[in-house]
């Protein structure tokens, strides 16, 4: 996989992960172009398209588009399930995930992704193992946080 982008229905980029070295300018250009292309597609269309010399695999979950660029020999269907497994991981971790979770806890979304995919390849497909790793990190985090910050958290989730 060459990169993964998460963007909203309005074309706002929510997460970007690049597995090939590209300049910031190039990244922005690719993002703009792809967001436009994918958003222009109708719901019933197929989830794959050719773009430059890459294959784009995307799927929409509510307001968010998950979009992966894979190489010629890569398997489209399994990439679709990579996306789904990632969504499942987010869902399990945040508990019925929504776009806001990814906005407010963007760093978590990145950490989960890193546990699941590394260097553009699947690292660990077991949901249990990925979440265990993140959970442990959270426990570590909580410990240190509690050491010197016991302020109450004003939740973004209260907003609705």
């Amino acid at each position, binding site marked *: 996989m060459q990169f993964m982008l998460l963007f909203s*229905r*309005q074309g706002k980029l929510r*997460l*970007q992960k690049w*597995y090939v*070295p590209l*300049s*910031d300018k190039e990244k*922005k250009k690719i993002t703009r172009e792809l967001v436009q292309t994918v958003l222009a597609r*109708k719901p019933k*269309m*197929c*989830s*794959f398209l*050719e773009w430059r*010399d890459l294959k784009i695999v995307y799927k929409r*979950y*509510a*307001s968010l588009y998950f979009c992966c660029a894979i190489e010629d*020999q890569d*398997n*489209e*269907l*399994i990439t*679709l*399930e990579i996306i*789904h497994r990632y969504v499942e991981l987010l*869902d399990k971790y945040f*508990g*019925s*995930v*929504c776009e*806001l979770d990814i906005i*407010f806890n*963007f*760093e*978590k979304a*990145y*950490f989960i992704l*890193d546990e699941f995919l*590394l*260097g553009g*390849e*699947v*690292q*660990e*497909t*077991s949901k249990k193992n990925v979440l265990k*790793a993140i*959970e*442990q*990190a*959270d426990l570590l*985090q*909580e410990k*240190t*946080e509690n050491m010197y*910050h016991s302020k109450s*958290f*004003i939740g973004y989730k209260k907003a609705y």
Partner: protein
Amino acid sequence: MPAVSKGDGMRGLAVFISDIRNYFEDEWRPRGFVCGPCSWSSSPSTTENRKSKEAEIKRINKELANIRSKFKVALDVCLVWKVLLSTARRNSFDRVQSPLNTQVPLCLAISSICPVFTGSSATKCDKALDGYSKKKYVCKLLFIFLLGHDIDFGHMEAVNLLSSNRYTEKQIGYLFISVLVNSNSELIRLINNAIKNDLASRNPTFMGLALHCIANVGSREMAEAFAGEIPKILVAGDTMDSVKQSAALCLLRLYRTSPDLVPMGDWTSRVVHLLNDQHLLLQTHVHLCQWRRPETLLSQLHASKVSDVWVPRQGVVTAATSLITTLAQKNPEEFKTSVSLAVSRLSRIVTSASTDLQDYTYYFVPAPWLSVKLLRLLQCYPPPEDPAVRGRLTECLETILNKAQEPPKSKKVQHSNAKNAVLFEAISLIIHHDSEPNLLVRACNQLGQFLQHRETNLRYLALESMCTLASSEFSHEAVKTHIETVINALKTERDVSVRQRAVDLLYAMCDRSNAQQIVAEMLSYLETADYSIREEIVLKVAILAEKYAVDYTWYVDTILNLIRIAGDYVSEEVWYRVIQIVINRDDVQGYAAKTVFEALQAPACHENLVKVGGYILGEFGNLIAGDPRSSPLIQFNLLHSKFHLCSVPTRALLLSTYIKFVNLFPEVKATIQDVLRSDSQLKNADVELQQRAVEYLRLSTVASTDILATVLEEMPPFPERESSILAKLKKKKGPSTVTDLEETKRERSIDVNGGPEPVPASTSAASTPSPSADLLGLGAVPPAPTGPPPSSGGGLLVDVFSDSASAVAPLAPGSEDNFARFVCKNNGVLFENQLLQIGLKSEFRQNLAITKPVDPTVDGGAQVQQVVNIECISDFTEAPVLNIQFSPQQEVQNIFKAKHPMDTEITKAKIIGFGSALLEEVDPNPANFVGAGIIHTKTTQIGCLLRLEPNLQAQMYRLTLRTSKDTVSQRLCELLSEQF
């Protein structure tokens, strides 16, 4: 995940994000997007959008200023402290120069920034901005960056976080580095240092973070620092599984960026053995976790690993398979043993019950990711030679095909996707092996079922996969049976990308038996096709029509139809090609003339049709002139009625047609001369048109009929060459692969062969960039390297011959002297002869190797730059050798003793008798003989130049031959050397 607070610890960050989000109130959404698509689709109006954008930018700038000041104070405190300590040591001043270059009273500085004046400067800095704040601000910066704003500070603070002992700070530091630091950052040394420490920490969580960072950045600097270290971590007995799998993928990433820096070695065989599924064969690994942490957490971390026999968890195997697949592509021998291991592993997965693999079963499909990866790995190798392994693999593939026929275990799309992902990968492997007709046909039938599946994705993939299946001799016929379905897809699919695949498949399954049907379907689809794929369809139709034309009238009709339906998308190559074919086949010329004449009668016809029409009528208009309905005058008037609507290149072409008419039909000469004489031609603002008009008018006035007939003779046949349309289609289809490269090379050499052919003086006589001349060149590169441009009036021929034979000496003469020159100099000429000059320009910096490939041919007089980055690894005495090969090919020279009396006339007669033209007064030395000719073969024409230099005193000859093909030069030289 219940009670975990998910570390929502950074209150300031949440507030900041909320602020930003408030500008887009309407984006708040109901929870739970896994459940299904939601119909929400309204978006804020553009003015609101702009306003909120402004507000967002304002808020961000405020935050940036805040963070900058926070970081700056921290920095200032450090600096003040350093200044303070040093000055305090020397003297006690009242005032001290602050880093901000303002006079700050010393005591004030101390009291306001650092109330407690104890301890070292380092602890003071931490006090000024503690780890938590640093983390929070770095996180805010990251968020701002991800919103799409530029961030130009904070890197240092992020690097500081890396060396924190607190996991959470370290983690944010690494995230910032992964997202924001580009490889050539100056900080890379500091980052590498932090990574090194974490890798050595033996704390699996820290090691994981460090490995993730390397895999995310993957720069060359990191490869240099860690490519040697990571294999050790990967195969070490005491590395935890989670670290192992990160290490494997980390190595994979480094190998992709810098394959030269990843050493192969003992570790490769141990990595291959990770695929082994025989538990008993595995070495016993007792976990020796030297890393001990006081926290109770540790027991949790280890709880799952207490067993004495170590069996790698499947994640490790998946990661290792990815690594092996990538490495095996370049080093197949090294990883050969992985084939049988992969087959047995795959076999176990395929035959397992869906519950066997527990968490690695995905929607009732056992280990789909690993299966796909194993099948992918097997595609790096030919079919296994060992019959047992081969049989087992065939069994696996059959099982996978069988399972596709079983009723689904779940209605969920994830189940069918995962199952079919494995199936498609298996089909790819079957196609790759291309050796089992039975499997190929089964695969084809399976794909045939998918062609009518209700899932668009499956239809798309079936079309795509069938494309490759069509090229196998075993399954080509089976693919062809689906033609009706595919044509139907072309007509009914609602998604353009699926239709595109259908076009591709029709193209791939086309052969002589169905070409007419497929071309007709493509043409009719073209009328309504999406603009984005029209050009490609046009190219495909043009290629198929030519390739499978039994009847060339069909071909001409097809191309004219193409121009009629999609004129704008017909590239130059397409209409060049139709003209080449019409000119080369006299059986179709009359038909072509008649058809274009009829097509031109349409009230609005495409300019490309005018071009083809103009060219063909100019050549073969006489073939239909007998018919009073297409008399010369009518032909001329018809063409001229389009003249004013056309662009300059087309008009130029039409002017050439007119002068050809003057030759073909003397009766319209006066009419044409009137047209040429008109102000709009003779005084045309366009130089090209004006020149043509003037010259053609003059030619038609002064030249006798004979001369006209010679100058304006019918075009000679074009040399047969690979269709340039094919090259264009390949170019459209993405960057060239290796095979493409070879083909380009071949095309180039073919073009070179065509090159020396004398350009007929007829239509293109007036000017060089005429469209008709392009027909020959097709924008190809100029012929092989020639010497420097001719300086005297001697002409090109002489200069070509004065080139000495190619010099590929181990060390070019004189280079030793030249080498000495560079001891105290960085720029200069390294080597020089009549043909070639090699300059050297060196810059010495700490730099890494990047080589830019240079075009294999160098044009005469041109300069080509080749960048070679060299790294000095240690001191040396022997100078590095730069081996440059340059060969002005295709020239052969022989010096031999005269075997016959050296009589000028006899020699001349022999050269003429040999079949070449004898060229007088070309060589500055009148005693030399110079000849030229063309050898015609069915496939190519080879231009030949020869020069024979007699030396009467020595009774010797020097014979030089230069042709467009080196083997021909060689043979001709051998033949002729015996003759004089």
